[in-house]
């Protein structure tokens, strides 16, 4: 399963531009998680949000979103930081205690992390495809 997903991600990385690749991976992640709310995505990265809107339900207002993709927390209103946060940097996981996972590039390779206790806290379930990326804690 893990291999298949990695191959999928690798294939995407061959053909997509960087932003398109990011959008596709995040879209894939959003599709493979479930919450008790409708999945409406917002991101402070406007370009990424526009790309995401092609495959995922998005909103231009963070207040209306159920999942927020955070590039830089400085850009987000305080009320929005209380929502389900998915970050684009491993260090952000530490800075935003409510964030449940991260997608980022480490040494040029695509890396995905989900923090298991935070998923439980936020009442988020992930599909089997994302299980290999579960971590018990932030290192």
């Amino acid at each position, binding site marked *: 399963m893990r291999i298949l997903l*990695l191959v999928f991600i690798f294939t995407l990385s061959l053909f997509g531009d960087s932003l398109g690749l990011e959008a596709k991976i995040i879209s894939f992640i959003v599709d493979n998680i479930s919450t008790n709310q409708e999945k409406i995505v917002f991101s402070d990265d406007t370009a990424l949000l526009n790309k995401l809107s092609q495959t995922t339900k998005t909103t231009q207002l963070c207040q209306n979103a159920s999942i927020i993709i955070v590039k830089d927390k400085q850009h987000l209103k305080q009320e929005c930081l209380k929502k389900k946060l998915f970050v684009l940097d491993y260090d952000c996981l530490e800075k935003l205690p409510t964030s449940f996972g991260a997608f980022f590039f*480490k040494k*040029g390779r695509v890396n995905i992390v989900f923090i298991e206790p935070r998923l439980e806290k936020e009442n988020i379930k992930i599909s089997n495809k994302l299980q290999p990326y579960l971590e018990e804690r932030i290192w």
Partner: protein
Amino acid sequence: MVKVIQPKHFLVPIGLFLLALFFVYVYYSAIKSKENIYSIIENDMISEYQELFENFNKYLVNKHNIKNKKDLLLLFQDKKNRDATEEFLSLSSKNIKYLYILQKDSKGRFRFLLDASKTDKARFYQKFDVDDQKYKTIYKTHKPQVIHQAHIDSLYLTYLYPLEVDGKIIGIANIDIDTSFKKEIAKLITPYELLFQAIVIFIILIVVLIIFQFFYYYKSRHKLFSDPLTKLFNRHYLKEIVEYLNLNNYAIAMLDLDKFKTINDVYGHDAGDYVLQQSAKIFKNSIRDSDIMIRYGGEEFLLLIYTRHEKTNALEVCERIRTNIEDYEFNYSDQTIDVTVSIGLNLSPVESKTIDNAIKVADQKLYIAKQNGRNMIVTTLSHQGESKLIPEKKGVDFVKHAIFDNRVLCFYQPIYDPKTSQIVKYEALVRIKEKDGKIVSPFFFMPNIEHTNIHYKITKLIISMVLDKFENEKLGVSINLNYSDFINKDILKLIEERLSGNKELASRITFEILESDEIENITLLQTKIEKLHSLGCHISIDDFGSGYSNFKTVLDMEADFLKIDGSLVKNIAINQKDCKVVSNIINFAKDANMKTIAEFVHSKEVYEKLVELDVDYMQGYFIAEPQPQLKEASFKVDV
């Protein structure tokens, strides 16, 4: 169409093409060399890293007494140990972008134990998602692995080294090499690459340009060397190929469409063009691919017959042409035109020193074919098969020099009255004496100077010479003029100047006009004849029976004499039809009050027949040959 191609013309593009190939090869080799350089540097780097990690492996085992994975994990849990080890590894090459130690956890995921990279540092035990199969292979083979990173930005390759203790892998040492060294090498090689590219492109462009020019050149050659009317080669082509022609391999034939001038006159020039075009097609269909047919000029064609393998082929080709022309029905504007061709065939052109001489020999044979009744092939220089060299045809310069050097002569042939056995007058016949003393007949130069100023000059010279000679003689003389002479103001002015005050001399002068000449304006001619009559001169119609004038035209000329054409006279003793025609002409002349003169009296039989037909006067070799001196007036023909 262009059969003979000069090989040297092809050397330039072939040379350039080979040069372009050479540069393409050099360029390809340069690219290969670049790859080889990368490979050599890569191998050097890998050897260096291998040595580094071997030492590192020993360092771990010897200094830290690492015995298994757990020991290694515990070692690097301590930040001090991590810092010290990072310092140990930091002595490595500048091309290293990332240097880190990974270890598999219990779930098979890779985790950072140590990261000596200067940028994008990972935390201790942070998960690292890797997807390459080489990470599996290294656990199977226990051997270092190299991953060429084509899809990770700014990375060139990743080197994986298995850290082992007692044959078990305790961790993987990773090095990511960036592309900077490749860029440095490329920076050095790129100017040379660009230079090669520029040279190759330049040479390819030149080759394309030259190929285009050659294409254009051969297209132009095609136009330059072909006759637009008949689509055959023209004389330029002969000049082009002459230096490559091996006369050993060819027979040369001169072909001439018989009575083509008459076809033009009777049916018009469009019909003449049609005959030329159709004849050219027949020629092409009658020859082989190896033969070369050239329109030599007007209705004259030159055929180079390839005879390298079989000499008899030449005659067969000529006979095929002759019969094909004879059998073809030339229909133009609902009229059928009879066309035949005469051919002079030189079977051994190699015996001539030059191709020009070989063509002259063929031309002489063509002349014999024409003289002997046309529509035939002549291969020897006399129709009896004897080798009798006929003088070559002469042009304007020949006559011009002859006039300048006073080598123009007059021969006189008697016109004889068989009833009185007396010469009644002479016919003046022009000759040119060559520098070596040989006498040249007008046949060989007069046709070539027709309608030129030289023609009028020589006519005036002859008139002056004859009048000078006969001023003090008792007998008369005939001078030949053609239609253009008759209407030439200068010639008529000269005659008037010489004869207007000398009625006695004028009464002994007869001007002969060819019946077959192109008489464009009979009214103008009549005016000129009247003028000559008013001076006291006589008029004779020459070669009557050979042309197409009707009887009315002849009567309109108000001639005093009618000279019967030699072609009718020569066979009179054996040909009943000719005999009847001559008899009728004599009767017609008597009714029209004209005296008759029979020319070409070459035998006793002809002489006797003409006496029987009651012709007035006779002329010919049987009676007397033309001579520079006047023959005595009274003599008996030996019958």
